[in-house]
Structure formats: C-alpha cells, structure tokens
C-alpha cells in the first residue's frame, strides 16, 4: 500500500503510522462519564469508507487525514490534518 503525502508525494506504507478514527470529537469539560467513555473507547467498525488520522513519522512528520475504504483499502483522499504546518492552521 502506498500513500500520497500532500507534502512529500507518494511513499510506502512503512513511513506512516495509523492513529485511528478521525471522527471522535473530544467532549466538552463537564461531559458525562458515558460521553467520555464513548469518546475514549467506543469505535465504529466501519465496512466501507472511513476517515482516519495518519502520521508521516518516517518523512515530513505531518499529521494527515485519510479517507480509506476498509473493504478495498482504496484511499480516496489525503489531506493535512487541521493545524498541520504553521501556515495552515484551521485548514
């Protein structure tokens, strides 16, 4: 499997690390124990398209947001994660 880093170009899988699901959003302070448990532990086991955070640790050390199909491993988009690169905050 190869991933096209938006900064470096096409690279082998070994340069990347998968953090996991990019969907969970940290609950606000004061959220219930159930909401925090859900955020920390519960993940959907998606059969199909999913978004994930990946880290290009063997290259430019940028965090990436990757849309991947878990059935075919097809990667349909790779973009910088929010805040990657000082000039791209909020992107």
């Amino acid at each position, binding site marked *: 499997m190869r991933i096209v880093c938006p900064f470096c170009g096409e690279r082998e899988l*070994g340069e990347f690390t998968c953090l996991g699901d990019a969907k969970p959003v940290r609950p606000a302070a004061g959220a219930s124990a159930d909401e925090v448990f859900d955020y920390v532990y519960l993940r959907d086991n998606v059969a199909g398209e999913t978004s994930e955070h990946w880290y290009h640790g063997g290259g430019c050390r*940028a965090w990436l947001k990757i849309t991947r199909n878990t059935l075919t491993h097809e990667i349909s988009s790779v973009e910088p994660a929010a805040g990657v*690169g*000082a*000039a791209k*905050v909020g992107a």
Partner: protein
Amino acid sequence: MAEFSWLPRSPLEHALVAGAYGARDVEPGIALTEIRNFDLVQIMARRGRWADLANAAKARFGVSAPDTPKAVSASDVTLIWSGPDQFLALSKGGKHTMETLSQAFSQSASLSDQSHARALISVTGAQARTMLAKLSSIDLHPAVFPIGAAAATSMDHTSVNLWRGNDRPDGQAVFNLLVFATFAESLWHTMLDAAAEYGVDIGHSEEFA
C-alpha cells in the same frame, strides 16, 4: 565552578575506517564520505507566520526558502526542506549559527540547533543510485530526483533528510543525507553492507561535497 570545554566528536568516529572496503580488484563503485564540523539549524515557522519567515529567509540568505521538497543553495548556505513550513540551514564556518540567525528570525520562526545532532554523509560514485535503491523506497532517477531535489524519508527504518547536491566534476551524482547522530552508526553499517559488492572508498572531509 569546574572548568571544562566541549570537544566536538563525530558520531561516526569509531565506525568510519577510511580506505577501501568490500569488493577488491575493482574500481570502487561507491564513495562514502562523512562531512564533519558543520553548522545546522532547524528553522520552523511559528503559527501562521510562514510568509514572514519566507521574507526573513530571503533577506538573510539571498535565496527563497524551500516550501516544497527541495534543497536551495546560496553561496555560503544550503536550505533543505524538512517538512511543511520548516527547513534546515546547513553551513560551515560559523556564518549561520543559532547566535547569528536568532535575530533575523526572532519574529517569525523557532530555531533549534542540530549541528551536533546529525551526521552528514555524502554518497557518490557510479553505483551510488543502485546502492541507495536497496535502502530507499523513493525513486532517485535523475528524471524525478534532479539536482536540488530533497526528501524527508526513511532508510532502513531510520529517518533521513536526503537531497541531491551538485554533480561531481566527473559527472557523478552526489546524494547527501543527514541522519540522527545516534542512528548514524547503524545506518553507516547498513550502507557499507549494501555497498560492499560494488567496492567502497571510505573517507571523511571537512568540506561539503
């Protein structure tokens, strides 16, 4: 207070044995040269300040800072892209050190001295690209990795900053790589293993390739 001074030593001091290595009775296909005693500063834009950093770099170095994977050379410094909104400034002779750069980038960037944190290895020779192909997954063919091309990548599971310098006078391509000091010896041995079949000419130099 006890008086002492720091004595700079190469991370390859023990591993590097100058001379011939590997295949005998052949013209060495690889030259491996460690470059010693350089100044290396990591320059990273502060949040949202890349444009300011680019302006400051242009004023300071006289060339545009790399914003894509490439190495840009000026008369006394090479700027090597190392990731989004960051690059390394490689020089010699104390011209571009933390002390001399901090003022120029005080508003736009954070600086980190890497002079003693990396080893700099220059790979050249007729078989250089063939040897590197064993260790690197990226295409180093001149059509896609010309002079000035750079990459932050991994070799033998070790992060390196790799870039192609100017060709040698005999036309051979020169590949420079910066590797973390504590990984240098490991990568050095791996490169020797990969290069042995072509015959290696090992050395070290105070001058950039």
